[in-house]
């Protein structure tokens, strides 16, 4: 399978900020010897270089659907990136300190695109509910801006990957969605709500601005931004007309 390697190499080496970087020891596939490599994490791609100054990565690990686990510390500060599937390889890495190991395990376990998308959708929904209120029973009453109540929907919190306490020496940070796995969304249906219950129908006023066929939340902040600006323009117009008073 061809990969756009040149672009990958550019992504790895360009000056966009990395989510983590540092030296790690990587155990070879067949031989158990460790090689010290310079690792750079960007998004869901873990690149590794022979040297810190190398122009191109030796390789990359795509971090979708993996588990990050601590190893028995025979090697010291070791952890593993494990993929599902019986023939899948497990990448064993070792850091140079406890702090580095914890930092890498944390950042790798939250590196997947799926995880990022989950968090974004959750915040998107929260913002929608705060801005437009939620009609019907589920979301609770309309709250004035400035007040903050913890989420009243426990099933939504459970849909996010569990963050386990550090004290557990054998903690497993799950990078895959696991139980909360959304159903199949193949096809051109666009972004539907996945896994979590759909929000109640929005108040009629909102439908005037919603140019999409469905009344579900918009999928991008560009659309949200656009909606706000139209709403503001309309309110301003109304206000100006009221100031002018009734026309003769």
């Amino acid at each position, binding site marked *: 399978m*061809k990969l756009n390697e040149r672009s990958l190499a550019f*992504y790895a080496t360009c000056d966009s900020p990395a989510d983590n970087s540092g030296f790690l020891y990587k155990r070879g596939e067949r031989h158990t010897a460790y090689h010290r490599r310079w690792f750079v994490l960007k998004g869901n791609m873990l690149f590794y270089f022979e040297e810190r100054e190398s122009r191109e990565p030796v390789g990359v690990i*795509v971090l979708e659907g993996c588990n990050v686990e601590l190893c028995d510390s025979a090697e010291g500060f070791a952890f593993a990136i494990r993929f599902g599937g019986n023939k899948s390889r497990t990448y064993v890495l070792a850091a140079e300190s406890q702090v580095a190991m914890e930092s890498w395990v944390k950042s790798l376990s939250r590196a997947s695109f799926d995880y*990022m998308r989950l968090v974004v959708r959750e915040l998107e929904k929260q913002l929608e509910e705060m801005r437009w209120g939620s009609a019907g029973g589920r979301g609770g009453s309309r709250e004035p801006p400035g007040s903050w109540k913890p989420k009243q929907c426990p099933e939504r919190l459970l849909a996010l990957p569990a963050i386990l306490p550090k004290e557990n020496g054998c903690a497993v940070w799950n990078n895959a969605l696991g139980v909360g796995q959304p159903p199949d*969304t193949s*096809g051109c249906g666009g972004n539907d709500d996945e896994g979590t219950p759909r929000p109640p129908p929005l108040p009629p006023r909102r439908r005037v601005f919603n140019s999409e066929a469905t009344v579900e939340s918009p999928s991008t902040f560009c659309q949200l931004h656009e909606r706000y600006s139209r709403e503001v323009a309309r309110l301003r117009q109304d206000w100006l007309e009221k100031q002018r008073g009734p026309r003769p």
Partner: protein
Amino acid sequence: MRYNERELLSLARQPAEKAAEIRMSVPKKGSVLKKRLVKLVVNFLFYFRTDEAEPIGALLLEHCRITKEEENVFSISFIEEPERKYCFECASEQQCQEWVEALKRASYEFLRRSLIFYRNEIQKMTGKDPLEQYGISEEARFQLGTHQQ
């Protein structure tokens, strides 16, 4: 460059955000449009010969530019080589627009910017950081200002 091909192939088999048969050409001399099954999964665009189970190739959609070309046509190019274009000829203008929209939102970096935006908005409205309850407010990847382009 080495990569975990088995996992990438497994990703290619997963449910797609978008999938369609589209005529496609690669930026190679003499390349012509050929019918391909094109599948968007997370920030990868896989393309298959229509009767095959394994993709011919995959494009990581980071630092790329999605351009609407002539009618029914869009292209993908990467910022370090903007003249090298992957071209896609859709069945209709509507399908073309839908793909352009979907691909523009497909990158990890776009998701990250969305997250930072929402986090900022919620924080402005409530005075509280919405990521605190998930214990991830200190994560480097979510910091305001660190990932501006």
